[in-house]
């Protein structure tokens, strides 16, 4: 193996590819996070709803998604799902970035299913008297959820949600299978164009690790500043 060539990582075409991939990975993470969080909250509340039908919808959503690998989600949303769309919508979609859109759909569903479970267990950690007391005070189920239960539950839920964000960050790498030009994809492009796999994979590993450690650090910071209160 030739000596490690740092210069190719610091400037030039390959540097630009890798950095653009890195930026896209971060963008994928943020977009997914913004859409997945409210969806997860909705699913968590569904799973605790007083109506059996709503609960069933929540259970099916979570179990159907969590028990299928993200790769299969990606393949389905990229190759499978557009086929069943009407022609006009398909044409409209293919003029745009269909790869990134499919990846975001897969990532959002996958992340939301996991996050909703974290939020649900956060909600369940709140003593049920809180709900009973709010209902007795005249709040509706949704009113009690929004004003009494969720504010307490979300505090407990932050650490596992940070953990899911870490998984999400790593999961964005799987978007390469459907040709989204994120970090992993660009690292492989650089490897096949320059035959310098060691350098390009070192760059990608370093970048993944850096963000992962930042996220882990955020979790430790939160833990330090908001220690778990025992009820």
């Amino acid at each position, binding site marked *: *193996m030739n000596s490690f060539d740092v210069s190719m990582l610091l400037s030039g075409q390959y540097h630009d590819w890798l950095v653009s991939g890195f930026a896209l990975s971060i963008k994928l993470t943020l977009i997914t996070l913004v859409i997945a969080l409210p969806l997860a909250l909705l699913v968590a509340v569904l799973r605790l709803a007083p109506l059996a039908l709503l609960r069933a919808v929540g259970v099916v959503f979570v*179990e*159907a998604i*969590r*028990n*299928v*690998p*993200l*790769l*299969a*989600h990606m*393949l*389905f949303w990229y*190759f*499978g*799902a557009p*086929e*069943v769309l009407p022609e006009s919508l398909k044409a409209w979609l293919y003029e745009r970035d269909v790869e990134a859109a499919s990846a975001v759909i897969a990532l959002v569903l996958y992340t939301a299913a996991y996050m909703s479970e974290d939020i649900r267990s956060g909600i369940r950690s709140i003593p049920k008297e809180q709900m009973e007391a709010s209902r007795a005070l005249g709040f509706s189920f949704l009113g009690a959820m929004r004003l009494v239960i969720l504010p307490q539950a979300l505090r407990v839920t932050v650490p596992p949600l940070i953990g899911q964000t*870490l998984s999400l960050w*790593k*999961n964005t*790498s*799987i978007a*390469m*299978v459907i040709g989204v030009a994120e970090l*992993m994809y660009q*690292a*492989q492009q650089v*490897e096949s164009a320059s035959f310098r*796999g*060691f350098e390009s*994979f070192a760059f*990608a*590993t370093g970048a*993944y*690790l850096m963000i*992962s*450690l930042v996220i*882990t650090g955020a979790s430790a910071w939160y833990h330090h500043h908001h220690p778990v209160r025992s009820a």
Partner: protein
Amino acid sequence: MWEILQTYWLYYLIGQYPEGPLGGLALTLLLAALALVLALPVGIVLALCRLSPYRLLRWPVTAVVYVVRGTPLLMVVFWAYFLLPSLTGQMTDQFNTMLAALVIFDGAYLAEIIRAGIQGVPKGQMESARSLGFDYLQAMRLVILPQALRNMLPSLVNQFVSTIKETSLGYIISLGEVSFVATQINTQLLTRPAEVYLLLALTYFVMCFSLSRFAYWLERRLAAGASHPGTR
């Protein structure tokens, strides 16, 4: 979807075997089972190092666990695919590459599960074992680990579910596991990707859902057993 299954079921289950390498669903399960079995001792060793009183053991292993857990599995797969041949001097086939990557990756995750399991065994167990004359490793092997592993059984089944899902990444290095075979079937049919990939999703769902239900059942059973120590 039914017609696809009727035509391709054998190919879907075992790939080109026996005319070619084993593939399909059988390979997915074989790979996941082998990876878990091989990763378990790795995880135990890493967990013991993480709990070791010696910094020389604790620090490097902690760093390794952090690095592996902070990197996507795909990255580990690429490193294995790219580095193993240059280290050993011979081409490693896709199966062994994927197996190596999974063992490293799962080993790091199992280490944390096992560490929690060991820490969950009351401290008095180690103290009494030591005072009965066991040395540290004997006490670990004969007293602590059997109890810790029993408590961890549900987590281990869940890790097996994760491992089944992780084998799907073999697709990227053209390992003929079930996702890859589904894609092959899709390329032959060309017009029915939605059905093919729905079938793939269903296949994973049936395996993983039943296993995770099993883990849930096991958890409740073990919890019930633990509250009546006399009935074990």
